[in-house]
C-alpha cells in the first residue's frame, strides 16, 4: 500500500515502514546528509537480486583504521520480523543527525568505531511479508528467503564441531578455516548466507547484533544444546562477557528488562529469561544460526535481539519501538570499547597478522587482524594474556581489566630464528671468552 510520505517527522526520521526502494532512498539520504562520515556498500544480492545494502558510519568511511574496532548490526534476516529493519534505518538517520548536532557520545563513537548497519539481510522475504493486505501479518509468510530457506538455520553448524573438539581436543576458534573452500561450493547455502559469510571473513568484526522479532529478549551463545535436547543451558567459554553484553542492551529497553512483564503469548516458556537476557540453548535449541557462526568462525561476538512480541506490528507502533530501543542500540554499540586491545608486532615493529591471543581460563582465542591489531572483550578482572604466532616465541602479560574503557596491551614477539641467532651469538661470545681465559 502506497502512502503519502510524511516528511520531517522529528529530525528527518519518518516512522513508517520502508519497502526496498524506500530503504535504499533512506540510506542514500543519510549518506547525502553525512557524506563525510558515511558510505553505502553492498555485500551481495538476495536471491531475487536485491542488493544487501550496508551503510557504514565512521570518521574515515571505507577504511579500516588500525586499532579501530569494527561493529555490525544486521536486521530482518527473517523477512517478516520487521521492527529490526526499521530501527536500523532510524538508527542510521539518528547517528547522522546527532553527529552533526555535536552529540559527544555519538561523535566519540563514530570517531573511534567503524559501524556497519545492514537493515535487511532478507529483503525478498520482507517484500513478501509487507505485501500482505491488512495489518495482521502471518507468523510465517516472508520469514524465509525467496528460496524458502530459513537463513538463521542455514549457516554451517559449527556448534557441533566445537562440542566434539571440547571432548576430543581441537581448535576452539576459527573452526571455519579449513572449510572456507567448501562453503563457496556448498549449494545448500543461500546467496544471502554466503554473502554474510564472506563479509565476516573480510572485515575483522569485533561485536555484532542480529535483530529479530516475535519475542522480547537478548539472546546469547550457544544457541544449540550440547546434548541435543530441546532446551539446556549451553554456555560458551565467554559466558560471562556475553551475559554482560546482553544486559547492556536489555537494561536500556524498558519493556525488555521489565521483570513483571508477562510473556508475549500466554503459554510461552520464558523461564530462562533473566533481566531480559537468555542463553540461546536454554530457551530453545537453534542449529545453524548466524550468531554462533560468528563466534566460532571469526573473532566476532554476536548476540540475537528479539525486539517485539509481534513480528510485524502496525506502523503506528514504530515510533514507540524506536523510543524503547534507541538507548539500547547506542549502549550496545559502546560495548565494543571494553576489555583489552592492542597490537602484535615483531621485534622490528612490523605487524604480525593472525597471531593468536589467548586468555588463561577462557577456552576461546581470538586472532590479530591484518595490521596486527586485536580486540578481546572481557568482563572486569585480572587476566593473563598470551600472544603467540607460528615461528615466534609466545609472550604472556598480566592485565587488570576495568569495566571500560579497553586497556591497551601490545606484544612484540621474537621469532625463533631471531632467538636462535641470539643464542648462537651468546655461545660464540662464551667460547671466545673461555678460549681467551683458558688459552685454547
Amino acid at each position: 500500500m502506497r502512502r503519502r510520505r510524511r516528511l520531517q517527522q522529528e529530525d528527518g526520521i519518518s516512522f513508517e515502514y520502508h519497502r526496498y526502494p524506500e530503504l535504499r532512498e533512506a540510506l542514500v539520504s543519510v549518506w547525502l546528509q553525512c557524506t563525510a562520515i558515511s558510505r553505502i556498500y553492498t555485500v551481495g544480492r538476495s536471491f531475487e537480486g536485491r542488493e544487501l545494502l550496508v551503510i557504514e558510519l565512521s570518521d574515515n568511511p571505507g577504511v579500516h583504521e588500525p586499532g579501530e574496532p569494527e561493529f555490525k548490526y544486521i536486521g530482518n534476516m527473517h523477512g517478516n520480523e520487521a521492527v529490526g529493519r526499521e530501527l536500523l534505518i532510524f538508527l542510521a538517520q539518528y547517528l547522522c543527525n546527532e553527529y552533526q548536532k555535536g552529540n559527544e557520545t555519538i561523535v566519540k563513537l563514530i570517531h573511534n568505531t567503524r559501524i556497519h548497519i545492514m537493515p535487511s539481510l532478507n529483503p525478498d522475504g520482507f517484500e513478501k511479508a509487507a505485501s500482505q493486505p491488512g495489518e495482521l501479518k502471518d507468523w510465517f509468510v516472508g520469514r524465509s528467503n525467496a528460496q524458502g530457506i530459513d537463513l538463521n538455520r542455514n549457516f554451517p553448524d559449527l556448534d557441533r564441531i566445537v562440542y566434539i573438539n571440547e571432548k576430543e581436543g581441537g581448535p576452539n576458534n576459527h573452526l571455519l578455516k579449513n572449510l572456507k573452500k567448501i562453503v563457496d561450493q556448498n549449494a545448500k547455502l543461500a546467496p544471502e548466507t554466503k554473502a554474510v559469510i564472506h563479509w565476516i571473513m573480510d572485515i575483522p568484526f569485533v561485536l555484532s547484533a542480529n535483530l529479530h522479532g516475535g519475542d522480547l529478549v537478548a539472546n546469547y551463545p550457544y544457541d544449540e544444546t550440547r546434548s541435543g535436547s530441546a532446551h539446556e543451558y549451553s554456555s560458551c567459554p565467554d559466558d560471562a562477557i556475553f551475559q554482560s553484553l546482553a544486559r547492556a542492551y536489555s537494561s536500556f529497553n524498558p519493556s525488555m528488562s521489565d521483570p513483571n512483564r508477562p510473556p508475549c503469548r500466554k503459554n510461552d516458556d520464558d523461564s530462562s529469561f533473566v533481566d531480559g537476557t537468555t542463553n540461546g540453548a536454554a530457551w530453545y535449541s537453534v542449529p545453524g544460526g548466524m550468531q554462533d557462526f560468528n563466534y566460532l568462525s571469526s573473532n566476532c561476538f554476536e548476540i540475537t535481539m528479539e525486539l517485539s512480541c509481534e513480528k510485524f506490528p502496525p506502523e503506528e507502533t514504530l515510533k514507540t519501538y524506536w523510543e524503547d530501543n534507541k538507548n539500547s542500540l547506542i549502549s550496545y554499540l559502546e560495548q565494543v570499547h571494553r576489555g583489552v586491545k592492542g597490537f602484535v608486532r615483531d621485534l622490528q615493529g612490523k605487524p604480525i597478522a593472525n597471531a593468536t591471543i589467548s586468555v588463561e581460563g577462557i577456552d576461546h582465542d581470538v586472532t590479530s587482524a591484518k595490521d596486527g591489531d586485536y580486540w578481546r572483550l572481557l568482563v572486569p578482572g585480572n587476566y593473563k594474556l598470551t600472544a603467540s604466532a607460528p615461528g615466534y616465541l609466545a609472550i604472556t602479560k598480566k592485565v587488570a581489566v576495568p569495566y571500560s574503557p579497553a586497556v591497551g596491551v601490545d606484544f612484540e614477539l621474537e621469532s625463533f630464528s631471531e632467538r636462535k641467532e641470539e643464542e648462537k651469538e651468546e655461545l660464540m661470545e662464551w667460547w671466545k671468552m673461555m678460549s681467551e681465559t683458558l688459552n685454547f
Partner: protein
Amino acid sequence: MGFLWTGTWILVLVVHSSPIQAFPKPEGSQDKLVHNRELSAERPLNEQIAEAESDKIKNIYSPENKPGESNYSFVDNLNLLKAITEKEKIEKERQSVRNSPYDNKLNMEDVDSTKNRRLIDDYDSTKSGLDHKFQDDPDGLHQLDGTPLTAEDIVQKIATRIYEENDRGVFDKIVSKLLNLGLITESQAHTLEDEVAEVLQKLISKEANSYEEKPNKPTSKTESQSGKIPEKVIPMAAIQDGFANGENDETVSNTLTLTNGLERRTKTYSEDNFEELQYFPNFYALLKSIDSEKEAKEKETLITIMKTLIDFVKMMVKYGTISPEEGVSYLENLDETIALQTKNKLEKNVTDNKSKLFSAPSMKSHEETDSTKEEAAKMEKEYGTLKDSTKDDNPRGKTDEPKGKTEAYLEAIRKNIEWLKKHNTRGNKEDYDLSKMKDFINQQTEAYVEKGILDKEEADAIKRIYSSL
C-alpha cells in the same frame, strides 16, 4: 647444530665446575626474555621448535570433519577431487542463478521503481492524447472519423494551408517532395499546382470549403507508378516510401534544391530547410510560438533535434530495424507529445508561480531542456524521457514518491552543506571546498550507480542539485 650441542655440554660442565664465575651474558636487556622463559619457554629452545613444527604438520593434514582418519593425504586428495567436480556443478548452477536473479532483478525493478510506473502512466496519457489529436487537429492527415484522406482532400488541405499561412512555400515543399519521390511527374506537378491555385482562389473569394473533382488523374498515375501504395493513404504512403526508399541522399539534395527555392519566399525561416515540417503541425506551431530573438537559439536547437530524430527514424527504417509504419507512428506520436507538452507547459506557467528552495520550476524547465537535448542521442531513451517529463508536468500532480524522494535528497544535501560550512569555520580540517565536494559527489554517485546502490536517474538528480549550488 652439532657444535651447539657440544657447546651446551661444555657449558653445563663449566657451570658445574666453577660456580663462582657467573656466566657472562652478551649485552641487551634480557629480563623480559628470562621472565617469559619461565612461563612459556621452560623447555630448551630446540625442543620447543620441534614441537611447534610437528604441530604445524599436524594442522596441515588434520582432517576436516572426521578426527582419527589415518591416511591424511588420501583424504585431502579425495576432498580436492570432490571439490573440483562439485565446483563445476556449482559453477553451472551459479551461472543460471546469476542470470535469473539478474533477470529477476530487472523484473523487480520494473515492479519496484517509480520510473517505470511513470512510463506506464505516460503511455496511457499519450494514448488519450492521440484521441485528442484526431478531434482537434485539422492539419492532420486523417479525417475526423479517422479515415485517411482522398486526393481531393489533400488538394483542399494544401490549399487551406496555403491560405491560412499565407505562404506559397507550403505547396512548393509538398510538390518538391512528391517530385523527388517520383510519385508525380513534372506535368502532374503543374496540374496539381493549377488545382491548388484554383481551390485557393475559391477559398479566398468565397471563404468556404468545397471539394473539387479533379485529382483522379494524378492520383491514379501516382498509384500506377508505385504499385505498392494503397489507394487511400497517399500522404502516409509518401512518407512511408520516403523512409522505405532510404533515399537519404535525395533528402539532402532535396534540402539543397529547396534552399534555392528559398528565394521565392517573402519570409525566411530557418525551418524552411526542414521540408518534413509539414508533417509535424504541432511542432511547427511550437516553433512559431517561439518568436523572440532571445529564444532563436532554442528554436534552432529544437529544429536540429527534430531533424536528427527524423533522420534517425529514416535510418532505422532503411536498415529494417523498424517498419515504415512504426517509424511513421513514432513521429506522429512525437508530434502529439509535443502538442501535449506545449499545452501543459502553458498551463503550468499560469498556475505555478511558487518559487521553492532551489526554484523547482526552473529546475524542471532545466530538466526539460536537458532532456530535450539528450533526445538527440537515442530514440527510445528520448521517447521515454519525453513521456517522463510530460508526466512531470501533469497538473494532476505526480505521485508523491518521486517528488518526496527528490525533496528528501535536497534536504539531506542542504543539511550536509550547512554542516560542512559550520564545521569548517572552526578551522579543524582543510578549507571547505565546494568544487572538491562536487567532484567527490560525482565520483561517488557514479560508483554507486555501478554497484546498483543508486539509479542512474537519482545519480543525475543528485549531480544536478550539486552543480546548481
